[in-house]
């Protein structure tokens, strides 16, 4: 995604910019919003507001250094202000309260050159990670955010992000190596 180009479109009053951003980030931001407000309808409305806000402030958008992070943070802030308005409290991230979606690697075992059993074990391990750990792992892996960006978004230190990532990786590796002896780790290449 070429965010520079999108910023140029915004500067030129070209609504195509919003469409590009929406196609690229709409569903990802929706999932983040849903994780916080836990209502599809509210999350939809919030995402609508976020994109409209970008359009209203289009002249300022050119000076935003990291447009992608800006959208994530705006989504987070909109969610929190919604929760505050409806008196549902959380002024800070409550990881335990987050919706916990299931994750999986979308490649086939053949492509990964490992067995189906191992892939299943890995997916289970990811889904059984603690909520905070899973969210950090998701933001890094699924959304492709940098560790620094995750720290800023979740309002935690970069050290915490790093240690959460380390916990996730360590667990996956440990589960796999304990359950499967080394010679079964890698499947035969076709």
């Amino acid at each position, binding site marked *: 995604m*070429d965010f520079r*180009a999108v910023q140029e479109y915004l500067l*030129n*009053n*070209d*609504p*195509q910019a*919003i*469409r590009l951003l*929406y196609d690229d980030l*709409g*569903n990802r931001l*929706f*999932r983040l919003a*849903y994780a916080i407000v836990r209502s*599809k309808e509210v999350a*939809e409305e919030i*995402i*609508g507001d976020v*994109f*409209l806000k970008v*359009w*209203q402030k289009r002249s300022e958008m050119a000076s935003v250094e990291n447009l992608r992070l800006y959208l994530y943070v705006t989504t987070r802030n909109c969610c929190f202000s919604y929760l505050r308005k409806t008196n549902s409290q959380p002024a800070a991230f409550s990881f335990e309260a987050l919706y916990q*979606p*299931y*994750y*999986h*690697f*979308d*490649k086939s075992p053949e*492509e*990964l*050159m*490992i067995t189906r059993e*191992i892939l299943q074990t*890995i997916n289970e391990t*990811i889904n059984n990670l603690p909520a905070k750990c899973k969210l950090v*792992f*998701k933001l*890094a*892996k*699924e959304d492709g955010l*940098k*560790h620094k960006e995750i720290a800023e978004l979740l309002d935690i230190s970069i050290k915490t992000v*790093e*240690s959460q*990532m*380390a*916990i*996730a*990786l*360590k667990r*996956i*590796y*440990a589960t*796999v190596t304990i359950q499967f002896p*080394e010679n079964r*780790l*890698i499947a035969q290449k076709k």
Partner: protein
Amino acid sequence: MSSNRLWVLMAKKDNGEASSAELEELEELLRAEKIHPAVMETLLRSPLHSLPELKLPDAHWDKIATDIEIETRPRPSFTARLFSLSRKWQIAAITLVLIGGALLFLLQHPSVTEERPEQIVTRAADTRYMQLPDGTTVKMNGKSRLSYTSEGFGKTNREVVLEGEAFFEVVKNESVPFIIHTTSVDVKVKGTSFNLKAYSDQPTVEAALVSGLIELSTSQDPDRKILLKPNEKIIIRKDSAAGIASGTVSHIQKIQPLEYTISELKTHANLLMDTAWMCNRLAFDNEKLGEIATRLENWFNVAIHFRDETLKEKRFSGILEKETLDQTLNFLQLSNHFDYEIHDDQLFIGK
């Protein structure tokens, strides 16, 4: 059990954030801990997805589009600006509808989704510089469209479709030729820089070669290759390249000789005429006013109407840089007299 440090470094590496010192440290730790990272690495290179996929409903976008339209609607008090603005908006709305339609089609045909082409579009009076996945750089002139399929681009194919004008600096790759398709002419490249002009509303396709070698073929006669050498320019008449003459009803294919001319590139004050637009200059060399008008339309984003058709045949030369539309017309009037009137974004030229 392995140390935390190892996994912190592994996570950094996976996210592309590890410094070279950290990568070295990681390798050492892996060796010390006797960990074989192959499985881990294969896994981490693969994207993670939530299941079941939580997605916004299709109708969601429509509401945003409406909100944006309301937001952008000009205030009634600016009556003077109303017409031009609302016209611009109509164009934008049409573009959005087209994109929406295309998306709907793709969603209903999931097998096509993966092949969705990348598209870069410039509007009139707009130029844009960009880089393709294989490293080739393209500077696009106004009112142009470039599309390509990102899947395998640079590896299995390097084919793009151009409508309009662009300057290409193609990265050399002997095994995967770079091919540019236009409505009537295909250009095959093996590493070179050149300008290609193929606007659908102009009768000719022009290619100007700065360095390297390009090979052209037409849809009328794909087996016939025309080679272009550096500092040469080719102008091909589209109606001859497209094969069947328009309006022919009979089944007898009327084969016209391919009409084209090759000439040396012209320079003026050390500026290549064909690539002048790249430096935000508009250059024409003994061109008919009818052809210049099309370029002025793109350059200044106006519509030009001729009240007297004979004026289209008058020829002009010159290079423009920062001149306004008025200054440009006054400058043209110096060498050949004509009158003009401007109403909003409509320009009328008469005797």
